[in-house]
């Protein structure tokens, strides 16, 4: 996996298992995933599907708690493959796909990589009539390419405020706390070039994420972010770095993935996940099928199952991640609901801004940081 995450997409394996060692694995992990896929034996001779997802807790929870139910329901065996997030993965996948040898039949892809894959002709379009449960999913989680739906929402994740209650008390209620004068060197914030700090700033101080649709709006946000610099001890690019900093008490809190923070809390870290009144930032991963994979039947069945209330309930309870289907279809107990839903509506990641201005955002942000 890569050391960076610059565009709000998940670029790292989940740190719960890999932790800071994550930094070392780099392209190695990608190569491993590719190699694992090429050997591709699922055994049994029955119907099977190779599915890759972000390695670590994420892939483990899917493999242990959700895929067996799918196999039970459909008779299709799932070979679960850990997937590194990041551009190397996408570039390798594009090459493998050209050679007709994709290591998996379905992978999880963040919105920007869905877009890049589309531009490179990587994804196969789904036959949405074969996925009746697609009706459960809001249209905003379906990405359409020239030939139809190329990516279907799999799982969401929140970037939210995480604090150490020992040093940050009382618990903050607003993102404005990140800018507060008494918090010098306190935070670890996402240092990625076009990451969630744009949405946080736009929603807290401007007219919401739409502010980022123009260069003037982006400039205004970046100049507001300048005020974060004295308070930021760590501009993190990899989940693992921030995890270490949170656990060591190097930072008092900051912006982090809500689901990873929950996992850290469950393993004993003294942290608090805060959903600020402006809302957490939500981003999501989609199921994508490389065009060289021919298992369309199985892929449709798999996605249909993953969009069922049963699977989405498990995503909430086992992955601590926000389900994407309509809330009225879910049956969550109160404790799980509190972890995966924000009391105020989440701030959606502005993809259109990235599509039009990604390079500009990265350039302005890097200049601000380096000043």
């Amino acid at each position: 996996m890569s050391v960076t995450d610059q565009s709000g997409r998940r670029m790292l394996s989940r740190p719960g298992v890999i932790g800071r060692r994550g930094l070392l694995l780099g392209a190695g992990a990608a190569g491993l995933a590719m190699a694992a896929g090429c050997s591709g034996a699922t055994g049994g001779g029955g119907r099977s599907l190779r599915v890759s997802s972000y390695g670590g807790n994420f892939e483990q929870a899917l493999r242990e708690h959700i895929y067996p139910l799918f196999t039970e329901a459909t008779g299709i065996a799932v070979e679960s493959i850990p997937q590194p997030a990041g551009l190397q993965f996408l570039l390798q996948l594009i090459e493998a796909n050209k050679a007709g040898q994709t290591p998996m039949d379905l992978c999880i892809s963040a919105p920007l990589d869905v877009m890049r894959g589309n531009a490179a002709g990587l994804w196969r379009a789904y036959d949405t009539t074969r996925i009746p449960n697609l009706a459960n999913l809001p249209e905003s989680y379906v990405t359409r390419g020239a030939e139809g739906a190329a990516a279907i929402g799999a799982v969401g994740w929140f970037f939210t405020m995480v604090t150490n209650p020992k040093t940050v008390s009382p618990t903050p209620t607003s993102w404005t706390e990140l800018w507060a004068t008494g918090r010098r060197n306190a935070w670890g914030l996402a240092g990625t070039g076009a990451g969630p700090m744009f949405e946080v700033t736009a929603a807290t101080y401007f007219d919401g994420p739409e502010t980022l649709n123009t260069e003037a709006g982006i400039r205004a946000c970046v100049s507001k972010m300048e005020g974060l610099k004295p308070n930021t001890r760590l501009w993190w690019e990899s989940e693992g770095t921030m995890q270490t900093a949170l656990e060591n008490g190097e930072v008092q809190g900051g912006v982090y993935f809500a689901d990873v923070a929950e996992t850290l809390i469950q393993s004993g870290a003294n942290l608090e996940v805060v959903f600020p009144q402006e809302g957490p930032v939500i981003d999501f991963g989609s199921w994508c099928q490389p065009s060289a994979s021919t298992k369309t039947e199985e892929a449709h069945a798999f996605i249909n199952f993953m969009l069922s209330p049963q699977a989405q309930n498990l995503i909430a309870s086992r992955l601590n991640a926000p389900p994407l289907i309509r809330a009225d279809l879910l049956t969550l107990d109160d404790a799980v609901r509190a972890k995966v839903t924000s009391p105020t509506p989440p701030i959606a990641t502005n993809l259109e801004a990235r599509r039009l201005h990604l390079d500009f955002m990265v350039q302005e942000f890097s200049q601000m940081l380096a000043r």
Partner: protein
Amino acid sequence: MRAAELSVQASGVATAPGRERWVLAGLLTAPGLYILIMAVVPAFLMVQLSLAHREVAGLWSPGFELTQYRQLATPLFARIMGFSLMLALAGALICVSLALPAAYFITRMRRRAQVAWLVFLLGSLSLSEVLIVFAFQVLLSTSGTLAGALTTVGLLAPGASLYPNFPAVLTCLVYLLLPYVILFFYPALSQLDPEVEQAAATMGASRLSTFTRVVLPMMRGQILTGVLLVVIFTFGAYLTPLVLGRPPQWTIAIHINNAAMGAGNLPLAAAYAVSVVAFMVALLVLTRVLSRRKASEA
């Protein structure tokens, strides 16, 4: 070439110069091909990529344009290059001034002690850079040994830590490179004729002035090469400034990675990389010209 001649003479086999040339060509084919395939071809591809057309909503498409190079004409790029060079020169200066006396003293030890030192230095090279950088992170962190000790004696405010900052980056880089530089100076220093120093001593020179006025001038070429070695290594430093520094201390390598893997802007990353290579080549040429001029003056 001279070594080959010597060995030929020593073995007593008379060889025609023509045949020797063929042998030499044969021996050089493999490394030559390796360099061609592994360095020249990728360099060409990198230049080609830097001229490609960037698709913001995709990756890139083939093209021939200078868009990315125009983007380099920003204060940011000048700042990053300036910082990378400053870091590299500071690292080189410290490394060389520590390594030279260290290597000198090692060569003046008994044989056994010399071997022990060399084994120790080589052993320290076997540690991975990643391990060392993270060990530094732990050492310098709030809960780390060093910060803890300094807090106890009152030199550091409680809760403060010794990174991320410029000194942390520089200290770790020097630690990483010092063994290389000592090992680089060792052969030349151990071959210095002891009679030269004895002569200086006979003429009344102290050990210090022998070192500064006799040994150092004789080592001038090696010192320059040593400095360049560290500069080239440090200019491309990635992990150390990333882990132990703040964004203003990010080197060009980090920005290349951010452009490529973060923004997906591979043409810009390639343009950065081509500029760095051009800058390094210019630096080497300049050094060569200057040292030649110095040599011809002398």
